[in-house]
């Protein structure tokens, strides 16, 4: 035991390396990574650009734009907006591009299509 995160379930006797090597799983992995990695890099760069500006470009950030509202406040509020926007974007991307293919693979595994020991049910197309 020790790590009982591995529950005795439909996935207990699955050949995960075989699943991992299927084209469809590689496609899922690629779709996931090609979205989350660039997005993570982008929002971190944008956040640190903002922090650096606030830290070292005080005069620029203090420029008044409208009434008492300055560049710093606008950029700060844009951080809120970009956070909300990325959240929405990720959710719609997952719903369209990740969830369907993940559900397909999950159903096949739970339908014992990837079990070890040759008792495979139907044709696994690779």
């Amino acid at each position, binding site marked *: 035991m020790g790590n009982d995160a591995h*529950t005795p379930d439909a*996935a207990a006797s*699955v050949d995960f390396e075989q699943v991992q090597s299927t084209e469809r799983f590689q496609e*899922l992995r690629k779709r996931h990574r090609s979205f989350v990695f660039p997005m993570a890099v982008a929002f971190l760069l944008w956040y640190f650009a903002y*922090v650096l500006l606030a*830290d070292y470009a005080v005069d620029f*950030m*203090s420029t008044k734009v409208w009434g008492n509202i300055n560049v710093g*406040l606008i950029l700060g509020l844009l951080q809120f907006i970009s956070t909300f926007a990325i*959240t929405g974007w990720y959710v719609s991307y997952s719903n369209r591009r990740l969830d369907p293919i993940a559900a397909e693979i999950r159903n096949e595994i739970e339908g014992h299509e990837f079990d070890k020991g040759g008792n495979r049910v139907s044709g696994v197309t690779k």
Partner: protein
Amino acid sequence: MIGIATAVDVAALKDTTLLNMGIFGLFVAVTMVIVLRASRNNKTAADYYAAGRSFTGSQNGTAIAGDYLSAASFLGITGAIAINGYDGFMYSIGFLVAWLVALLLVAELLRNTGKFTMADVLSFRLKQRPVRIAAAISTLAVCFFYLLAQMAGAGSLISLLLGISDWGGQALVIIVVGALMIMYVLIGGMKGTTWVQIIKAILLIAGAAVMTFWVLAIYGFNLSDLLGGAVETSGNPNILNPGLQYGKTETSKLDFMSLALALVLGTAALPHVLMRFYTVPTAKEARKSVVWSIGLIGLFYLFTLVLGYGAAALVGAETIKAAPGGVNSAAPLLAFYLGGPLLLGFISAVAFATILAVVAGLTITAAASFAHDIYASVISKGKADAETEVKVARRTVVVIGVMAILGGIFANGQNVAFLVALAFAVAASANLPTIVYSLFWRRFTTQGAVWSMYGGLGSAIILIAFSPVVSGLKTSMVPGANFAFFPLSNPGIVSIPLAFLLGWLGTVLDKKREDTAKQAEMEVRSLTGVGAEKAVDH
């Protein structure tokens, strides 16, 4: 709108003590009934630690917001904006943007591969014992720092809200708060704790919304006029510009970079936040949880922007600094200015509830980590049944509760926001590199995980010990001594890159390879959710 800064009579606050206590008592009574009802179904370990995985994404998202919007963010950020203006606002941006790390890289994958604790995920495909022990130690360390911050906050809050200014009286109130918290966690487990968080989050956000609306109404819903009011009362136009707090010297500028790094990378590595993702039935609900919490937390921080500048304009920095509780009193004083004793009583009760609920969430996380990772997996080598494990968890709750009470009594008066920022730095250094590597880097090994976790945890704590937070300044914990050779008060800028480096180095220097079948299993499970822990059916 000018000259009303003197309208807040701090001495009059003491007259509202009974009202404050009454409203708080009502909150305790109502939540206790709910906790008792919720606890009727607490049978298995999954019930106790993960609320039977029965919460919906929106419920859990609200509870996460409740966990995250601690006294430090509500009182601390409002106060920081009221006193330091724009620099206080930057805190809240870091706290919010950090959620994207949790959303994109951690939440769903973690929900799919773990069971109760962070260590479940980290030790999934690596060697059980060393990784589990390291993860449990860092979980306990982060929870301890965070607990200390909350309990220290309780002390300064009490001095303001209940008019108890002597040390003994404050200690007594800390004991009462701690004892209540132990009861919630013992009886309610994760389910009870989650309901307390949900109720508290709704009250806190509603209270802040009313105050925000009120402040904006005073200024004719014109943000520019509100900012103008803050400048007028403070007599310092720089309150709208960055740099008032962190722009003083080159060291303080670097310190802000360090803080920003710790804030943005720490959130997704806080054990009590990670554990919340196990209270929902699926990864999709975990995603929904984060979406909800980002919405609620973002909204709340927009409120604190208005409340902070509102307090600066309507109460005034001088009055706030002079009040008992200092910076932390900005929000309660603003409530008193706007709505008199009744609104103050409501806001005070919510602030108390905040501390109570956050402390409860931290305690159950620490107890689960000890019982599940150290007791069940290491001490009894997996032979303990779930019933014994939960029994151990309950005993741990009492021990941690007592430690939190003692720590709170001695940390009373320490700067709350600082302590929380340190907890974030420790979490980002000790946990985040290993979480990211084990989810995304196939080659990652046990040695890399152990080096990264101990290296990150150790360097963060050592740098804090030799920083100006502990010694060398009048405001330090040990004001008489000076052994501060590290100039920054936040260690993140050194310890976080170091932990990433150690994780990489430990892996490439490791001659042993990890089990590729386990790696395949973890990757497939994390992305597809196959075999993930299901909701408990009652």
